[in-house]
């Protein structure tokens, strides 16, 4: 990653995480969005189309679409068609329940990536987290997508439960022509309450770092640059991309540094009242985030690989920014105790 060019300031994000609705047909215990019912104030169809038009005009290259469950929006496929007509890539995160052959056909487009969420290699491990029957629904969705020209990945959140099943999940994904993608568990949304129960411990994080080195085809969405080693240096970011390469739009149109920092103090602006370009270029919240330095990490031998790790995890565990990611390899191998999570 060419940090020097990023630090000069980009005219627009490279990609934008867009949570299009809070509505969801599951109630996963670790949901970062605390999704469930649609909430009042979610952007209308016309407002969503305007968001797409504005970001396309700024030459944002990609949307990372999530929610809630994006397909719960009746207009979702039409919104995606509109984005694709503008040449924008869409990476859609879904639980797969609403994917059938018709939907798969609508998604059959080289501009589409689909990530289907799964948190275990069997119903016994997955369903207690994601809901009864969710495992079988994922397999059914993967079957529909397999026959299409769509880049598909199976996305799992790294937890104490999924940790021992990563190899099995890699094989399962491959059976459906998909890759495994591992996301980091963050204590936001319902994740706050399930953090102590599900978060991996130090030894598991160290073992996971080793496992990643032996599985270079597994992607991490840049969630784990805090534990990246030299072998994976070229595969992604070595720093937090929030406000530099990316940002987040909530279902109501609120703009934040990232999907994991949606506390009121991180509100940078509101669409459609505020102009997205103005938010990106002039928001004090974004300016402050871009200047964020984790001084205590700068002397670390791993600083060039991670630049202090994920600020969101640091914030949610220690209630402040500018402190190290507690899950970094340097912390794991040091004698420092694991920082205790802060109860909501």
């Amino acid at each position: 990653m060419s940090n020097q060019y990023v630090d000069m300031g980009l005219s627009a994000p490279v990609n934008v995480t867009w949570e299009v609705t809070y509505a969801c047909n599951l109630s996963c215990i670790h949901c970062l969005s605390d999704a469930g019912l649609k909430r009042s104030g979610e952007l209308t169809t016309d407002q969503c189309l305007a968001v797409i038009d504005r970001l396309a005009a700024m030459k944002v290259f990609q949307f990372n679409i999530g929610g809630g469950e994006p397909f719960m929006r009746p207009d979702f496929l039409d919104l995606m068609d509109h984005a694709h007509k503008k040449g924008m890539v869409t990476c859609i995160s879904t639980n797969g329940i609403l994917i059938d052959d018709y939907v798969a056909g609508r998604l059959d487009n080289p501009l589409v990536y689909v990530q289907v969420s799964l948190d275990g290699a069997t119903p016994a491990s997955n369903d207690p987290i994601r809901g009864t029957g969710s495992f079988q629904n994922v397999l059914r969705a993967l079957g529909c997508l397999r026959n299409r020209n769509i880049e598909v990945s199976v996305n799992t959140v790294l937890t104490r439960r999924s940790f021992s099943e990563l190899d099995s999940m890699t094989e399962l994904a491959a059976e459906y022509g998909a890759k495994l993608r591992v996301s980091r568990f963050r204590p936001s949304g319902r994740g706050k309450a399930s953090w102590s129960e599900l978060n991996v411990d130090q030894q598991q994080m160290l073992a996971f770092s080793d496992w990643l080195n032996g599985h270079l085809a597994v992607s991490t969405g840049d969630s784990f640059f805090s534990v990246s080693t030299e072998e994976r240096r070229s595969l992604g970011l070595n720093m937090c991309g929030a406000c530099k390469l990316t940002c987040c739009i909530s279902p109501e149109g609120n703009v934040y540094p990232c999907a994991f920092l949606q506390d009121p103090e991180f509100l940078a602006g509101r669409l459609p009242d505020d102009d997205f370009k103005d938010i990106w270029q002039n928001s004090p919240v974004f300016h402050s985030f871009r200047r964020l330095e984790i001084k205590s990490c700068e002397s670390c031998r791993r600083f060039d690989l991670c630049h202090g790790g994920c600020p969101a995890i640091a914030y949610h565990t220690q209630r402040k920014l500018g402190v190290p990611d507690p899950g970094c390899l340097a912390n794991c191998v040091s004698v420092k105790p694991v920082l205790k999570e802060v109860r909501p």
Partner: protein
Amino acid sequence: MKKRYYLNNGVQVRKEVFGLLFYDYRGPRLYFVPTKNLIANDFFNGTQTAEGLMESIQTRYSQSRQASEQWVTHVLTELEQKGLIHEQSIC
């Protein structure tokens, strides 16, 4: 023979302060190319030939013909090798 260059399928480019930012959806991958303001992003729509670009740089920046030709050839070759652009020659 005059050469025009076009973006490969799946590649987009936009102008930044340092030069050009290429996005290749196969990956996806980002490429930061420090061309400053020497190459406009619409160059890759075939709006200008490579030879025209060399002459433009030579004139605008008082560069020698050899220097501008070397620089433009180097940049375009790199971009071709990375699979971002392709050349179409016209006679």
